[in-house]
């Protein structure tokens, strides 16, 4: 299972702070496509962290079982 944690306005779009996917292996690009089709995350600015390390969205990276992915948008309130 892959865990996805959502923050800021992306958590609102996903209507959840966190969810787990049944998949045990997929590329980062596939994962982002999947999430975009579910929650239209493409309209938000955000960074991606895999296991608490921020990675490039374009990086050829395999997400595997028990990995934790986080979508981090910038906040603007103050």
């Amino acid at each position, binding site marked *: 299972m892959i865990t996805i*944690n959502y*923050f*800021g*306005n992306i958590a609102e779009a996903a209507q959840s*702070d966190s969810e787990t996917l049944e998949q045990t292996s997929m590329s980062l690009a596939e994962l982002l496509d999947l999430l975009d089709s579910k929650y239209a995350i493409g*309209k*938000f*600015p955000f*960074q991606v*962290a895999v296991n*608490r*390390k*921020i*990675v*490039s969205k374009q990086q050829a990276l395999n997400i595997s079982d028990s990995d934790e992915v*986080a979508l*981090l*948008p*910038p*906040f*603007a*309130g*103050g």
Partner: protein
Amino acid sequence: MERFQRQIILPGIGTSGQQKLKSSSVLVVGAGGLGCAVLPYLVAAGVGRIGLVDGDRVEESNLHRQVLYNENSIGSLKVDSAQQVLQRMNSTTQLEIVPEYLSAENVDNLIEHYDLIIDATDNLEVRYTLDEACCSWKKPMIYGSIFRFQGQVSVFNYKGGPSYSSLFPKEDKAVLNCEEAGVLGTTVGITGMLQANEALKIILGIGEVLSGKILIYNMLKNDQQIFELAIQEEQTSKKATSPTIDLISPEVAFEAGGLLLDVRELGEKPVIAWENSIQIPLSVLEHRLDELSKKVKIYVFCQAGTRAMSAAKILKEADFLQVKAVRGGASDILKLIQIEVNSIEKQD
């Protein structure tokens, strides 16, 4: 020193730490919810000099979270009300208030004289302007921001560490601020307190600074997570050898009689037409270096000074050794040219 006794006895602080606080200077940009949380703790801890920039006036809808203000403050400039309260907290703190909004025009003059910059703004545009200037001036920028019940904190540009724009490159996409998204006072309070805490740690040289990391605090769950930023090899190695750029006033540059290099983009106003000036926009400067001579003094200017710094770095790295950046910008240069022209006409 009696008033600071309880913090002086802490390991890692002592009287020398208290002296560091006394001789430090911090600029707080924004006197809203975050600023109201940051400021009293810096003042109470004994930070010697604190600047505060904000052009806003207090509104009734600010009072639930901007706790430096009261019902009598409504309609007053935030910086004025904040100064009154803070000066009463600590009469020895040197408070410098600027009732303006930070912009590309004033950013260099504002941040130049402070050791540390606290980003307590609620506006992405201003944040990018501040971040760019902090990069040029190599000033640490302590970032805090919130979205509903979540807060983000990080320290950018700290000892060659990453900048805000390297974490979140400028994108043309909507991000909500407090007015649009709603906010609870404690959310900005906790986030601002974390910023103040980073400021004190940096000044005192204690603990681990949140550089190269971003902390996200979920107030509803009491959950905090720290994410590490990727180290960009190219950027860090470039920074390590980055040349130092002398910054001079427009008057000095003008009187020195070198070449005035305008790096603004074509069409920016005011237009400078002067025998000793040439315009090569920053965006194409690297491809047009052969138009410049390494034998003459070059004084680079733009609209506010930030791009001039970047351009001067490019030139220094290309072995133009007699290059300096001009503080301020085109409007100051234009005034000097007009004075010069008038005096020549008089002589004729």
